[in-house]
């Protein structure tokens, strides 16, 4: 069971993201702001910080690729960015103490980096329909707010799941 719990919860967050996007959106809060859920990415970051870096990167790549295939249909963008940012975050965590508040702040910063990089990638591929200031106000800030709230709510449960899986024994 403890072997299965990590892939199962990653897959749960993978689906919860799309359900969230379907049920709640900016229009429900009467604004044109875009709230992008990054639950799966937060899980992968916490896995990297509190579990093992190796597993974080592998999960980042596999679920990023699944994300690309199922949702965006442009292969490689999220697979590469999830794995790459997991690596960067693990390097950063070596410089500071890995307590949960620092982890929450660094995860939020990583989400900001992810959003900006995806924006740039989409700008290369096609017309994104907004310039950087619009992107920052309509999309980036609401997204960071949503995901920071999500981290605050679920940081401890996620941490507990990962500690249960017990990576030190591997």
């Amino acid at each position, binding site marked *: 069971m403890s072997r299965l719990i990590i892939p199962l919860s990653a897959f749960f967050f993978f689906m919860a993201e799309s359900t969230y*996007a*379907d049920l709640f959106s900016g229009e429900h809060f009467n604004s044109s702001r875009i709230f992008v859920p990054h639950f799966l990415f937060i899980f992968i970051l916490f896995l990297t910080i509190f579990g093992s870096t190796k597993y974080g990167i592998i999960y980042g790549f596999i679920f990023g690729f699944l994300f690309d*295939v199922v949702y965006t249909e442009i292969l490689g963008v999220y697979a590469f960015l999830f794995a790459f940012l997991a690596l960067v975050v693990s390097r950063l965590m070596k410089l500071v103490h890995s307590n949960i508040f620092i982890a929450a702040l660094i995860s939020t910063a990583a989400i900001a980096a992810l959003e900006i990089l995806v924006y740039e990638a989409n700008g290369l591929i096609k017309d994104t329909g907004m310039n950087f200031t619009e992107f920052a106000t309509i999309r980036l800030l609401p997204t960071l707010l949503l995901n920071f709230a999500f981290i605050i709510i679920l940081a401890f449960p996620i941490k507990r799941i990962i500690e249960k899986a017990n990576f030190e024994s591997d």
Partner: protein
Amino acid sequence: MPQFFLNKRLIVLLVSIIILVALIGFSVREREKLSWPEQFLKDTTGFVQNIFHQPVQFVAGFVENVNDLQHTYQENKRLKTRLDEYVKLKTEVQELEKENVELRDILDKKESLRDFDPIQATIIARNPDMWHEKTIINRGKIHGVQKDMAVITSKGLIGKIKITTQFTSTVQLLSSMDPKNRISVGIYGKGTIYGFIEGFDQKERLLLMKKIPYDVKIKKGSEVVTSGLGGVFPRGLPVGKVEKVESDQYGLTQVAYVKPSAELYDLNHVIVVKRKISTTESSSGAGAEGDDL
């Protein structure tokens, strides 16, 4: 941090960037169908999502019902006032329909651009990264869904089928920023005005209807419907209402801002529309116009 860019790491990074670019290049082009690993992954996740979606939708539906109950009294009052109007309209429509059928019989014209077969479907997922406005439905090739079919709700057009797998299909919504997402529409008033739905204004959340001749006058609030002239969509699917009209950046044509009549969020049950009249695809002469739906 010197060990960050060790030689081996650097090579791995470079190789993965090359693979990344190759993958993006492979997947970004317009594809007729997906490769089989992609289809397999999509069908498998689609199956799980279908199960996952049921309880979620049940709870969401319950909350919505409670919300509806609160407005019932006022709504009832308003609807009662419109009931008389409705009866009159209904008899008129019946007469017109009968006359239409008779006239068609006289002309011996069986097929119409308006006729279509509906395929009922349920939304099982939506792309959480909101750059590509796409949703996934639980009907695929084996249910008769094909690429480029129109997708509607009871209120109006919401998008078209982008790609199909065996058991699921991806719907590209009208609000998606894709230059290839063009739909031939018309405003049917005294004279008919044709144009294309091309693009979406993110800030004001309005569709852009382009390529309207500069000399026609469009009233605010006019109904925009699909014209069926693109060769794939049936005629007469409601798209939205005109909010405002501006001339385009060169002053040669006009751009109308159209408020979509269907809700593009919180979608649940949709209908995939299969046009009855044969498409122009078999006589693939109009290559350049193949994308205009």
